């Protein structure tokens, strides 16, 4: 049963989440971004932090979801090739019902197909370990972007305009609110799911794989099966997040928006590390901090933001690899339900 303290915390957060677009009405787009970033960081953490498979390639599922949502949304009602050729909205107009039907089915497809893709390539890719896995997924993500940039039907190099929000809804707030609540809903689902995993045997298996895969296998765990399932979980939410972002941004470019390894692909890794890999709250805190930092600073250092990002990556990774939660854990171990044997600790210090 949920403890009372938790109940208050969660209901407080949900109320805050529901009220946020009305309280900070001007920041709805940023809040939507925040939700998506948290989802990405949290699900990256599932296999990056818990399973120890540091993927640079989850952007593959994100971009795939983005393209799929938009393609389904258009393709359900209009010929896709003509849409992209004419630059989108000029020739065809979605009615309100068509728009919402399209995005609903689109998001469904965007969640399912990347999951299937992850399952299909999982057996081959997840057999690689450590840095080979990291580089291989990096290659996958970039290859996907390059290949998508050469496919005519989804706009090739000139990009793909996603259907605009129906013009029949005159309320100017509606678009922002719709995307915010959509992303918030996905965030809540993702959190409940990840929270459930954190309390399950599945997490222990993932941790066993991270700590020593050979031993885990020797203990009779079918590691490959669990690795694939873990990756599929990430892919599911990455696809959804991508679909929402595609609708929000309104324009898909193969390498700068969809398979954006230089931004989103790094962000999700960075956020999870900043907050603390392998913790439930770490990625959430990391993503929130990162987003505030980014939104607050980006405009002041216009043009220099990538330099700042690069320096930030180096600093976090080199000096702060355990992240915020790791640091807190070191400092206040009893808060995390860990006890440290004083004698043991002293003995270790003396050994040094």
């Amino acid at each position: 049963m949920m403890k009372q303290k938790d109940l208050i915390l969660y209901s407080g957060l949900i109320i805050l989440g529901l009220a946020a677009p009305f309280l900070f009405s001007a920041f709805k787009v940023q809040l939507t971004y925040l939700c998506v970033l948290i989802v990405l960081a949290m699900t990256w953490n599932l296999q990056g932090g818990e399973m120890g498979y540091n993927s640079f390639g989850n952007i593959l599922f994100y971009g795939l979801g983005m393209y799929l949502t938009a393609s389904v949304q258009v393709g359900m009602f209009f010929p896709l090739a003509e849409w992209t050729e004419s630059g989108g909205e000029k020739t065809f107009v979605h009615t309100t019902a068509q728009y919402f039907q399209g995005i609903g089915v689109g998001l469904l497809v965007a969640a399912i197909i990347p999951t299937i893709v992850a399952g299909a390539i999982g057996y081959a890719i997840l057999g690689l370990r450590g840095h080979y896995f990291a580089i291989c997924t990096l290659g996958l993500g970039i290859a996907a972007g390059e290949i998508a940039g050469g496919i005519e039907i989804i706009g090739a190099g000139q990009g793909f305009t996603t259907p605009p929000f129906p013009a029949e809804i005159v309320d100017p707030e509606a678009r922002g609110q719709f995307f915010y609540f959509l992303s918030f809903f996905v965030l809540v689902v993702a959190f409940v799911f990840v929270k459930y995993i954190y309390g399950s045997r599945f997490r222990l298996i993932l941790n066993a794989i991270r700590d020593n895969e050979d031993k885990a296998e020797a203990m009779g765990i079918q590691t490959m099966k669990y690795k694939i399932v873990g990756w599929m979980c990430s892919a599911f939410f990455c696809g959804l997040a991508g679909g929402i972002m595609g609708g929000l941004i309104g324009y898909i470019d193969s390498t700068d928006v969809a398979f954006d390894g230089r931004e989103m692909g790094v962000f999700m890794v960075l956020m999870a590390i900043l907050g603390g890999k392998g913790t439930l709250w770490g990625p959430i805190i990391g993503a929130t901090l990162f987003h505030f930092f980014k939104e607050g600073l980006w405009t002041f250092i216009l043009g220099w933001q990538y330099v700042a990002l690069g320096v930030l990556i180096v600093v976090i990774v080199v000096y702060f690899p355990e992240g915020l939660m790791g640091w807190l854990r070191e400092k206040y171990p009893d808060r995390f339900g860990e006890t440290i044997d004083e004698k043991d600790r002293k003995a270790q210090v003396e050994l040094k």
Partner: protein
Amino acid sequence: MDFLIFKAPILMVQASLDGILLGILFALIAYGMALQWGVMNIINIAQGDLVILGGYIAYTMYLAGIHPAWGVIVSPIIMYFVGWALYKLVINKVVDRDLFISILATFGIAIVFQQLMNFVFGADVVVAQSEYGTTMLFDNSVTLPNSKIFAAFISVLYAIGLVIYMKRSRLGRAIRATAQNARAAKILGVDTEKVYAATFGINAALCGIAGALISITLTLHPYVGLPYTVRSFMIVIVAGLGNLPAVAISGMGLGLFEEFADYILGTEFRIGAVFMLLVFILVYRRFKLSKKREYLK
């Protein structure tokens, strides 16, 4: 099959020559990567960006009115110090750590480099004109820029020089000793910290040479570094660490693959093909090893 390359077989000669000459250049970059991977156990994602930076040094000389070919001497000298400084600033803190940390940290360095180059040199595609002319072969149906031949020649020259240096010189011996067993080397009086800095510097210098050669044979752009990293990574995992003939051969193989992919799939899929090849090579190795219940280490 209605591909142009099968209709006009002479294009195969063109593609092969281009590929082999290009491959030698890739092999030079890969050799640098193998060197620092073997010695310091670091995967440097910024490798390609070091190459591009080296290229921009030669390009700057070209703008200043000096022939860019002199870049193959100037660029490595400057890049050696860039590499050395990079080591002192960041790399020395990731040497003994998890490989993933070195990947991420160098990824950060790569982003910084890209952006700084973008500021300084602009986002245009540039090329330094060497004005070496072109050699026509087979009744003018195969064109071969002399700059490519020059680039391959210089690469081979530098590679031979480096091999001799690594075999004969004191520092070369120290580097090889550290690669074999850093701890033992340290006990026997090798200043491993210095060796690491020198190794990273040499790697950056090799990138500088390759970059200067790329500036006259291919094109430069601030954001095209990553494909060079991936190419060299690929060559190293196929050839293994510290096996120079294998590095050269797999470099040429990669060059051939790229040129043929360019003709068959189209230029827009060229980089995509390179990255897909990386995935295929890794997956192939993985299945081959998993038959013996092993995995890539």
